[in-house]
């Protein structure tokens, strides 16, 4: 009889949690411009019962877990552990039980960022600077690519890998450069695996990456709310919330997302230490990642690494809401098109030609 009661309680708790996850976190607040943290439809998850009415489930578990860890650390057993290990354990506990980035207060964001810096120091002896710079008001990022100018040199790809701390083991790359026959705009016929001197007569080059769609299908399919569109239009992933189901990879019509089959390997001397929580900080095994328009650079006013590296000026990045920006000039004055426009994903990535 009691066993049944217990089982019933657990099941109902699980159901409640699932319905919350699908209703509140996922769908309501990502598509409009209200910052997710202030969205009224998106309150932190609450559960009642034994933990009291005002504690979220995760926080409660975190506290309980942290408590157990701390109790262990302070107990007689703690003599076996040195200070550093205790620190590492404590930090890892808190890190594991933190909230989704969108539900964090500014203070919690600051704390988690500091914690990540400390963990990198004690775990891997890396001195990094992680930022949580928020989106600026009146900024919506857009990108333009000149298919008449690109010569297929792939300087952008190299710069991207270095900037975004991508896995050197699996040679992960975000940018695809397709070599295409002149007069043919069918991306399926492009060859992205060319290895010869470029440019080749009679061909042109077209680069793809994450297009940061306004109506991004990858966000729609995420079952845990680990990916969303920021107020400045950048589609980001909370690497600590992603469960690695790869639905988003399947949903993206532009091959924009990448999966970490193993823990990313980056030599310490090649690590880019200027990082952002939603950007190029080290990812774990089994999570998705993608181009973030170099959020760690662009939120500070710098151009993405690919734009900076391009020797031909094929790449333009800017603020779509600024009528004086280059991106607006291109959209207003050049013949522009977007890839697979019929899908209605509204990519913020335009192609144009001279």
């Amino acid at each position, binding site marked *: 009889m009691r066993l049944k009661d217990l089982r019933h309680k657990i099941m109902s708790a699980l159901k409640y949690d699932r319905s919350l996850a699908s209703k509140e976190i996922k769908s309501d607040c990502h598509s409009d411009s209200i910052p997710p943290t202030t969205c009224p439809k998106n309150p932190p998850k609450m559960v009642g019962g*034994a933990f009291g009415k005002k504690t979220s489930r995760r926080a409660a578990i975190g*506290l*309980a877990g*942290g*408590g*157990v*860890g*701390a109790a262990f*650390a*302070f107990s007689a057993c703690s003599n076996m552990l040195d200070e550093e290990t205790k620190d590492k354990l*404590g930090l890892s506990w*808190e890190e594991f039980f933190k909230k989704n980035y969108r539900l964090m207060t500014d203070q919690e964001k600051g704390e988690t960022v500091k914690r990540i*810096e*400390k963990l990198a120091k004690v775990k891997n002896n890396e001195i990094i*600077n*992680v*930022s*949580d*710079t928020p989106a600026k008001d009146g900024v919506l990022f857009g990108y*333009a690519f000149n298919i008449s100018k690109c010569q*297929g*040199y*792939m*300087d952008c*790809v*190299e710069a991207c*890998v270095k900037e975004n701390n991508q896995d050197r083991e*699996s040679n*992960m*790359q975000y940018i*695809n*450069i397709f070599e295409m026959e002149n007069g043919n705009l069918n991306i*399926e016929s492009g060859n*992205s*695996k*060319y290895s010869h*001197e*470029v*440019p080749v007569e009679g061909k042109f080059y077209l680069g793809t990456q994450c297009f940061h769609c306004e109506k991004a299908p990858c966000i729609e399919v995420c079952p845990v709310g680990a990916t969303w569109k920021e107020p400045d239009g950048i589609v980001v992933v909370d690497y600590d919330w992603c469960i690695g189901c790869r639905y988003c990879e399947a949903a993206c019509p532009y*091959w924009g997302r990448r999966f970490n089959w193993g823990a990313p390997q980056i030599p310490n001397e090649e690590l880019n230490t200027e990082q952002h929580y939603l950007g190029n900080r080290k990812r774990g095994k089994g999570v998705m990642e993608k181009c973030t328009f170099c959020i760690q650079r662009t939120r*500070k*006013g*710098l*151009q993405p690494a690919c734009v*900076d590296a*391009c*020797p*031909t*000026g094929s*790449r*333009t990045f*800017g603020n779509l809401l600024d009528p004086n*920006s*280059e991106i607006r*000039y*291109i959209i207003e*004055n*050049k013949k522009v098109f977007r890839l697979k426009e019929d899908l209605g994903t509204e990519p913020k990535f335009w192609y*144009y030609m*001279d």
Partner: protein
Amino acid sequence: MKSTIRLGVWVTTLLSLILVSNITKAKILSENPNQPPQEHRGDIFISGIETVQSQYSSLEKPFLIKKRSPALRKSDCETCHKDDVKTNSNTTGTHNDINLMHAAKQGMNCLTCHAMNNVELLKNVNSTQIIEIDHAYLSCQGCHFSQARDWAGGAHGKRVRIWAEPRIVYNCTECHNPHNPTFKKRWPKIISTLPEKK
């Protein structure tokens, strides 16, 4: 009755655990008090780029151009040649390292762009107007007017490091060698490692 006692025990245990964990949290975050608090909210990145105001006409919004002259080796003849300059009789002129591949067959020569009396200056290709090196685009636009219009608007060329205001762009000659302006064939920097599409 039993369940009430059990609940009581649970609540007490939990409260004590929460207390202990909060103490450890405070300890961890306040560790290393000597370290200065790090600034995470970055400002707009403004760097020391030497610029000049654009002189491109027929455009309402002004912008900045990265100075080109500091990157150039000055061809100041008098620093070596104190006496009368005598060119080698076997050569037809100085600057023999320059192989003009810029519409040379169509009739362009040094003096199409360079000022006759001062090699430090350029000239308008369509008139005798003298142009400074930092404003080389004024010379280029004499022929490449549509490119110059796109460059001033933002569809040609590229910006220097920042996307935010102020707008600073590269001069034409930063990317194009004026004596040989086309981009050359070369190997890609890196080979694509992405899996083949099915």
